[in-house]
């Protein structure tokens, strides 16, 4: 099981970085998973060990999400990018003026590119990415399926990656 963990940990970290919107949090989660796997000892696992690892990591993530009662994914994303937790205090590094200017310029390009895209694609991307709705919430708001939202958001990202360095 430990060997399998070694093989799969980088890919598991990628999955949970996407789901948690934070590389650092995903690394922490996968480190916790290490402790769980270690606790299994030499236990031989019947059947699909890779799926078991995924389920264990998923459960750890759900535990965390429950216990944190977080203030929305967007706030958390912001904090994980900018804040270092030291003991029970958090410190924050305020963004520099030039970073803010650069980001505003990039955002302008982003908005201009969105305007060239079909309306449902731009709307799905704006609701999800800029207003922070989940895929399910965006789907409900637009009255379409979740898989359509996935397609719209992917299409917007593909267009944007071509326009922004």
């Amino acid at each position, binding site marked *: 099981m430990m060997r399998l963990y*070694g093989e799969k940990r980088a890919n598991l970290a990628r999955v949970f970085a996407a789901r948690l919107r934070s590389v650092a949090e995903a690394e922490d989660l996968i480190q916790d998973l290490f402790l769980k796997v270690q606790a299994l000892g030499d236990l031989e696992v019947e059947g699909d060990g890779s799926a078991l690892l995924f389920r264990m990591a998923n459960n750890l993530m759900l535990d965390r999400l429950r216990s944190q009662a977080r203030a929305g994914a967007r706030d958390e994303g912001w904090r994980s990018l900018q804040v270092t937790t030291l003991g029970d205090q958090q410190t924050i590094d305020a963004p520099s003026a030039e970073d803010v200017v650069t980001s505003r310029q990039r955002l302008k390009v982003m908005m201009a590119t969105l305007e060239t895209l079909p309306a449902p694609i731009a709307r799905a991307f704006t609701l999800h990415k800029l207003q922070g709705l989940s895929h399910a919430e965006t789907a409900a708001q637009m009255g379409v399926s*979740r898989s359509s939202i996935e397609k719209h958001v992917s299409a917007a990202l593909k267009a944007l990656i071509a326009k922004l360095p």
Partner: protein
Amino acid sequence: MTRSQADIETAIGWLVRLQGEAATESDWHAFDAWLTASLVHAEAYDAAQAFDQRLDLDARLAEHAPAAAPATDNVVPLRQSHRAWAWSAGAAIAAALVAGAVLVPASGVMGGQETTYSTGVGERKTIALDDGTRIELNAASSLTVRFERKTRHVALGDAQAFFDVAKDPKRPFLIEAGDTQVRVVGTAFDVRHRDGQVAVAVQRGEVEVRPADANPFRLRPGQGLSHAEGQADARLATVAIEEVSGWRQGRLIYRDQPLSQVVGDLNRLFPRPVKLADAKAADMRLSGVLIVDEQDAMVGRLSHLLPVRTTTTKDAIVIRAR
């Protein structure tokens, strides 16, 4: 550029699927199989992920006035005067072995006078320069600072350091790391100069890097450059700065790095040497986080992450391929 447009598009499809709340076990299997099928896939995915993260950052930064810190409960703005405190707390978290100290040069470093700073094995230091620049020096590192009227100079020996350079457009800050020059005005970034390799990763602002008299590269936040001394070329990549400078929080974070580098890092943290018994072990690649605590525990975790066996004697720890 080896990765194709099609790979990037597939990578974006995966990223969005995984960000949706409904990723299943079969998604995991298919994703894992796709990543494992080719290194190019993993690279394309990481690039898509970094791009997406950058978009989030842009959206967030654009909303913020530069001076205004987000309204969060127990948040202390990390300004110059708080840094000393922040750093000693951070160092305390790391390891009993790692000492944190803020050094303020007694006589200043103006007028061409040189000051050399160094750390021993397992030691870290924060250096506060007269101009407001702060340098965090990793273990077993040395650098020399020389301030002149029109420039600020730092020469890196065998070292890793994180620079938070005070802004002064009239007096650029120049760092020499082997055959590579780094030039900035006011930014935060990490420089590593070890074993003939130079790596620069940028957190804030813009950094100009000129490896071996080549044309200078301009790096932006989230970008990194790596260069082998003596070679004419350099590699640019998107990097996660919190990973590169994880050492500041007592975490060593690796993405596909050779075990020989990991062992080099361990040997800068602990006096008892860790040795590699064979080339096969030295060439193994590690991806993962090592929390800096005790040497035995760290080496023990390595043997779970990689197919190696370790033997501990009184004066060395030997790692060999299993």
